[in-house]
């Protein structure tokens, strides 16, 4: 079992594409594997014949254990250990007979199960409750040393965290005790990651929140006009307009487009916008790269593609890492307003509520207007109250006067 994502510790074999005895070529998909974030392909690393399929469909095995062996045609293959046991020190087949005989698990993947760390770093991690597997080691051969742990709380973690509670998931496996007043649901890969990541945000990151109400009447008019002119060629949603306005506001307020990095703050020139997407049993934050430089139509298309991929769990790691700021929208669930949890090392996230008609005073008259509430969560280590407020004011102005986005 290869480590298919930076945080993967175990994988569930969803489906074998090749069967025992099938000839395989290097690069061909052997199986689909559910990792902590997505369903990904496990590919052959050598030519040969698939033998000794040791992990059944539906079975979860730790990274580094043998799931099958690729052997030369006719090569006798010794019995592989059961996949749940620790990774074997040597390939189950002749290692020198490469490409034939290479085990599916690469040596690098086998090493991934063991974390190299200094005794001091281990002790510090144990006391701080830090998972060493999530820490990038800077010592010899990637060894985790004291320095790495000192910056671990603020390091860019490799997988996007959840931004707010997800819609109630449908648990895949439910163990119900007859007559018991409860049921135990094992954590899925994605929920394990959510749990791990969530604890690195709200606890250590000093959050504060800013809320503003935005008049969406003109944004609505703009959307309708754009959709009319686009016709068959596509459509623009409120969410697209909000993403676009956020990206442009960030360009003007680089102080909010930043990562907290322990001893320094990284201000990003480009805007890579994270977009929280609810998926079955969890959520994920795919990233729209260079959102500030995309046209509204391009941005809308990118957002839709990423959301579709997220829901079908086909996101590649590079599609859900590296965001510089995030947007979470629960408007479709008729939530008036909410606070979102920052996705470290980012310094901010906005939580977008539903758009609804409200009596509003316009030119001295009470008129019904479409209104929407936005709440920004800020990491106070990076963003101060006035900094966040200034960004939010720009965002509000852009949404209330969408033509300003053309400037």
């Amino acid at each position, binding site marked *: 079992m290869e480590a298919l994502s930076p945080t993967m510790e175990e994988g569930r074999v969803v489906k074998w594409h090749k069967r025992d005895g099938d000839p395989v070529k290097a690069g061909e998909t052997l199986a689909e594997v559910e990792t902590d974030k997505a369903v990904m392909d496990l590919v052959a690393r050598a030519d040969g014949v698939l033998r000794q399929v040791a992990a059944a469909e539906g079975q979860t095995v730790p990274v580094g254990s043998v799931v099958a062996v690729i052997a030369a045609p006719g090569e006798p293959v010794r019995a592989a250990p059961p996949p749940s046991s620790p990774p074997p020190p040597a390939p189950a087949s002749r290692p020198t007979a490469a490409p034939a005989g290479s085990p599916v698990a690469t040596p690098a993947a086998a090493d991934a199960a063991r974390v190299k760390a*200094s*005794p*001091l*770093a281990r*002790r*510090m991690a144990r*006391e701080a409750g830090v998972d060493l597997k999530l820490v990038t080691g800077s010592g*010899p051969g990637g060894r985790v*040393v*004291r320095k790495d742990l000192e910056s671990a709380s603020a390091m860019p973690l490799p997988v996007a965290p959840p931004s707010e509670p997800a819609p109630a998931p449908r648990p895949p496996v439910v163990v119900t005790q007859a007559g018991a007043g409860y049921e135990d649901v094992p954590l899925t890969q994605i929920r394990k990651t959510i749990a791990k990541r969530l604890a690195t945000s709200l606890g250590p990151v000093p959050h504060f929140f800013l809320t503003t109400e935005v008049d969406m009447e003109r944004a609505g008019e703009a959307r309708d006009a754009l959709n009319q002119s686009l016709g068959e060629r596509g459509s623009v949603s409120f969410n697209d307009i909000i993403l676009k306005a956020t990206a442009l506001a960030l360009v003007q307020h680089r102080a909010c487009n930043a990562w907290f990095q322990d001893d320094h703050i990284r201000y990003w020139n480009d805007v890579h916008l994270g977009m929280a997407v609810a998926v079955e049993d969890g959520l994920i934050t795919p990233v729209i790269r260079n959102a500030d430089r995309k046209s509204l139509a391009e941005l809308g298309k990118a957002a839709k593609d990423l959301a579709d991929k997220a829901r079908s769990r086909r996101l590649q790691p590079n599609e859900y890492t590296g965001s510089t700021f995030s947007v979470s929208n629960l408007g479709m669930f008729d939530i008036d307003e909410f606070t979102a949890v920052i996705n470290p090392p980012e310094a901010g996230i906005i939580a977008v509520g539903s758009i609804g008609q409200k009596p509003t005073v316009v030119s001295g008259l009470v008129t019904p207007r479409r209104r929407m509430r936005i709440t920004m969560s800020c990491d106070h280590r990076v963003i101060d109250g006035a900094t966040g407020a200034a960004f939010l004011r720009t965002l509000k102005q852009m949404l209330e006067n969408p033509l300003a986005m053309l400037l």
Partner: protein
Amino acid sequence: MANSFDVIILGGGPAGYVAAIRSAQLGMSTALVEKDKLGGVCVNIGCIPTKALLHSAYIARLLSNAKEFGVEAGSVKTDYGVAMQRSRRVSDQNSKGVEFLMKKHKVTVARGAGMLQPGRKVKVGSDVLEAKQAVLIATGSRVKGLPQIGLEINKTTVISSDEALLLEKAPPSLAVIGAGAVGMEFADIFHAFGTKITLIEALPRILPLEDAEASDTLARSYRKRGIEVIVGAKVKKGTAGKDKVALEVEAGGATQKIEVAAVLMAAGRAVNTEGIGLAECGVQVTDRGFIKVDATLQTTAPGYYAIGDVAGPPMLAHKGSREGVFVTELLAGKQPHPIKYDNVPSVTYCHPEVASIGLTEDQCKERKLDYVAGRFPFSANGRARGSGETEGFVKILRDKRYGEILGAHIVGAHASELIHELAVARENEYTVEEVELAIHAHPTMSEAVAEAALDSLGRVLNI
């Protein structure tokens, strides 16, 4: 001789010659420029010959006390001239060894004073060598006197370690000014050869950079042996005559006049940055006179690097050698292990020896660190008792929470060798527990290291 090389190194001391070997090992064509003997101060007038003389001193002292061990040596006679001649042979052997190493690794040695020129060039005599990759400045340092109070080195009555190493006989009396490593070692050497020693230190304690407990132990040991130790002392005036020097020393509110046959200046070193063309190449120096370098040891002039004493403190051979390896690996496109300057061991080879790494206890206090000190005296160590070397102790300062070894201090016989267990531990981030977990052979002096670790954990066994 082709005049174009990948790397040119100016100075053949422990920084320069080690850099030359590593550079050549990494496949870079390398030239080493040296105006004097290969090996620099270390091999010729520093580390190596003093260790030879210190061993002579050790033997003299050992024989004087041999009767207690059941060995009668008769009356012990010493001859500094003979010891000096032997130390010269040791130095020459080492210098020839460096020459051999240069040949073995096909390093071109250019003899003469090198002068840096812009464009990564070094002029040696009428030759101009050109470096394709980098010029490494490793010109080292030299002793300095105190001309402002009349103690300019005159090489007869006011001498530096350079002259002391070449004396034909030990002077009847000697004032050593400066009780750092050099002053401590020469006081030890000459005392063993019958010289009456006055050791004068401006700061409140001898070995001022070491842990206060180490300083105290050494001061006691020296005084017991009959060496006069004056600390917190200011030499107000020095008058050098033909065969004697008169000193006015103020200490503890009183001024005393001291007359000695010679004065040994051991109050610091000056770096060799003059007359090598630094300014012409845009290589800047710091307020303290060292060459300004960045984290990769590159100077303010691209393509010019500084290693060893000229690159800044600590001015120690092993620090310079490591810098030489670091820079050449960097030049060869490798990613060398970064140098941890707080992890350079410091050793004084007087008797008893003093070795340390990391922070002193005072530094722990200044930094308000939450620490625990573990100690073990050699008087409780079987091996030390057996050899009659019970002076000194091992002291380990550990972080209270995680057990990190913040500092370690050893005073005693073989301290210079014992410190490396703790150097390995610190470099690899072992805590006191890993040190203690390693089984230490019995009976050894090293057991005291494990016991000090245990003591810091409140579990000391043999005391």
